[in-house]
């Protein structure tokens, strides 16, 4: 079989040395293949959004069921690369201006109570328990030229539907008081059930397709009855994703994360509060990409595509017209080396600011803006086989490869540099 394949490819072998020379030219380092779609992104740090603390998020709230609806809207026009630079989405392959538009609706149901009150069960009898379930509905769509470029890879540019399910239970600590300062801690564990809609052929997915387990310590403090501080440290263990989407641009080995968040709120009256917060998320180690398959759908590729992709988008002539018109490069095929690749991990820093209106004791209406201030996204240096014939692989390429830098996509890899807007409504059942 192998020899047969070798024979069939032999007639085209004459092309290869020229291609090799061509591809090993100065453009090698320029990622000329333009495969890197730099398309994000799907809900940057979805889990980060879910767990960004709000006013009194971790205080010992009344024993009651609460419901919460949160609408999050963002138009992602910039992302962070691995150097921490803000990069317009899609550049250099499409002009800036298009975006990934995303809207998330989070439905949260929170129960606080103490099933063991008045009992003799140690620890639990005096410490309230809580459970929370978070369901997600999402809409995500790449726009304009980004969507068009996505289709070059045979990838759907967006997806909508049900997101992953978050289930959380925990226990409050006792409240401690030193003069005007009150403090309580809590311990909780969240499990993310990967039940959300997930399509390997989509550029954006509502679901993540991997499990997460998030132990969390949080605290709430109040000073002088006016200053409210809520903070948390969470460590997120992430499972693997053996079915990456977008041609393997979602990591298969997702690194664990650590989250650190703190929120300061000021009480103006019983009805009005304002807050500012800081949220930090960092991967512990590197993400791994083991199943890279992203490729142009229509092959073979004409040499013009290489010239256009490179010269037009970089704005400099790196491929000479002679090369572009060279008859030996009438057509060629590309095929990625599946991996393994690793990125440098991701990091995100975000500031939030919001106002709250408390209607009676039962309802809270909140408007909040989150602005990323620093970050680092996932990028990998992938290798593509360059072949004159199909199938394109190591043998048929004769070892000719070209490097390219690809952005990782979705929440485990991409970090948005664009702000998002959050509209939140909380209702306490049974309140007067």
């Amino acid at each position: 079989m192998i020899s047969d394949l070798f024979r069939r490819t032999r007639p085209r072998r004459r092309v290869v040395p020229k291609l090799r020379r061509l591809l090993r030219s100065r453009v090698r380092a320029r990622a000329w293949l333009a495969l890197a779609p730099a398309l994000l992104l799907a809900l940057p740090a979805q889990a980060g959004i879910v767990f960004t603390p709000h006013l009194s998020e971790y205080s010992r709230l009344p024993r009651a069921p609460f419901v919460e609806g949160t609408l999050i809207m963002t138009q992602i026009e910039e992302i962070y690369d691995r150097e921490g630079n803000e990069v317009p989405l899609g550049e250099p392959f499409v002009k800036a201006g298009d975006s990934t538009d995303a809207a998330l609706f989070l439905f949260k149901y929170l129960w606080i109570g103490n099933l063991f009150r008045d009992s003799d069960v140690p620890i639990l009898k005096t410490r309230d328990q809580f459970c929370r379930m978070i369901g997600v509905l999402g809409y995500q769509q790449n726009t304009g030229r980004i969507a068009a470029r996505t289709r070059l890879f045979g990838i759907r540019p967006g997806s909508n539907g049900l997101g992953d399910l978050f289930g959380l239970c925990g226990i409050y600590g006792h409240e401690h008081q030193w003069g005007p300062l009150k403090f309580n801690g809590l311990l909780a564990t969240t499990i993310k059930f990967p039940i959300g809609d997930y399509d390997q052929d989509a550029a954006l997915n509502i679901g993540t397709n991997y499990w997460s387990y998030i132990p969390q310590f949080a605290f709430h403090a109040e000073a002088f009855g006016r200053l409210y501080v809520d903070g948390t440290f969470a460590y997120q263990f992430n499972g693997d994703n053996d079915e990456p989407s977008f041609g393997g641009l979602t990591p298969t080995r997702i690194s664990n994360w650590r989250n650190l968040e703190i929120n300061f709120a000021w009480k103006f009256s019983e009805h009005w509060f304002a807050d500012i917060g800081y949220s930090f998320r960092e991967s512990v180690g590197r993400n791994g990409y083991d199943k890279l398959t992203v490729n142009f759908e229509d092959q073979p590729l004409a040499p013009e595509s290489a010239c256009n992709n490179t010269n037009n988008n970089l704005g400099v002539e790196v491929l000479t017209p002679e090369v572009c018109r060279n008859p030996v490069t009438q057509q060629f095929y590309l095929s990625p080396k599946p991996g393994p690749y690793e990125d440098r991990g991701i990091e995100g820093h975000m500031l939030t600011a919001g106002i709250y209106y408390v209607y009676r004791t039962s309802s809270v209406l909140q408007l909040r803006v989150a602005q990323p201030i620093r970050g680092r996204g996932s990028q990998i240096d992938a290798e593509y086989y360059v072949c004159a014939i199909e199938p394109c692989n190591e043998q048929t390429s004769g070892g000719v490869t070209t490097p390219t830098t690809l952005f990782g996509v979705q929440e485990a890899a991409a970090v948005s540099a664009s702000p998002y807007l959050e509209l939140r409504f909380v209702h306490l059942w049974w309140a007067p």
Partner: protein
Amino acid sequence: MSRGRPTPFQVPVKASVKVVGKSLWLLGLVALLGACAPRERLLPALGLEVPRVDELPQDFEAPLSAQTGQPMDGFGGGGGGVERTPVIFVHGNTVSAGFWKPTREHFEDAGYSQDELWAFSWGWNNARYLDSADLSVQSVQRMVDAVQGYLREQRGVAAPQVDIIGHSLGVTLVRQWMKQANAWHRVRRFIGVAGANDGVWTAWADTRGQQRPVAWELYPGSPWLAQLNRGNEVPGGTRYMTLYDGSGWGDVLFPYPLEDSSALEGADNLAWNREHGDWYGHLNLPWEEGPAQAMIDWLREGPQVPEVDPADAPDVALEDGAEGPRLHADQEGAQIYCRDDGSDPGLANTEPRAALPMQPGRLYSCFAHDPQTGLASPLHRHKAWQGEPAQGQRPTLTIEPAGGAFEQPQRVRLRSDDPEAFIVYNTAGLPLSTGSPLYDPEQPIFVAAPLRLTAMAVSPGGQTSEPVTVDFDISLELVEATRTLQRQFDPSRPLRYAGDRKQGN
């Protein structure tokens, strides 16, 4: 598969797993909703007993809660004898007798015995069903009866009076009980901790749902509170103390301008946080050492009366003398406290006197008090004839509206055919006396809960009408909720409440 790094989950999410996952989603949702069911329903469904504050003596017959119909759990009677006036703790909304355990420790440290410290879970103990003062007046009556009866029968202590400490809703509840039951003489000292005596900002007049009764009671400016406070905020033979935040920032229920809502005019008011620079909150205020010690010190004042025979309590006597009728105490050394302006006398703000001549046509509200023992009489009302005494017929009384089911609170008017008669009533289904709340024709009775209104007219000279009793059913949601919860104890109870819905007037 793990490739060099262990992960907690190695679950490839294939299609079948997705199906399982979505099933888990539904199961989880159902479980969470189940967890929100009342604990009294959930735990029995799981074959478990609902935990209770089970610290009452075996031989103690627990009184029934007027709201739940179930025996109240609680603590007290654990031994140690009775040397002081027994203390009954009355908790607030949505909690149980267990609320008072931290406070009990301070009292025990101060020498109180378990026989002297009592508490009962009088409400639903569930945030889903807020409690109500009007609906629990009889619960307080029963717990006081039960404690006094137990100490009398099992400890041989008469305990004619008790001290009561109420917290939050427990404050207005106890005050309402003392007023409706004319029971001030049974309470030596009363401490109201963080009570909504002038309202609480979390209650609203147009509240919907099961919480309407308590919201109608306690919203700032509510007619119910006006009714409770009318005619003296510290009436009867009881001494009053209040303990509260006062800063407007410590207790989130009483921000400005309600920071002094808990105070009572004529009481020993202690705005603890404001005066001591502390920041105790609504719940922990009575748990902390300083406030608890202040309560203990205040209760130590005055005569302790555990072993005085209730029969030794003084009373008000009416005597027809040569100069006309006069009121006086029936015991040597006792005094009477009287008012003749329609308000109620109180120890703290009424001048005591040995005797009081009655003026024709005036209504006197009086009680007797013995400063030596501290015992007092119930409140009595007397009216002298203006002119010649009428003979013969008893007065009659009409109530409008004459009961029924209503969605909104009602203003109820009472009318007697005898223009000289005064009218007394109560809304707790308790026996009437002349010392029951006095009806003011200018201020119709505010009925804001499912309750029983009983009233009678009293003519000068003391002739009374037949008591008239009507039932009001306000807040259909509460009735439905109550029946829903009670169905667990009595499955034959109809699922749906079928009361007639009428528009309020």
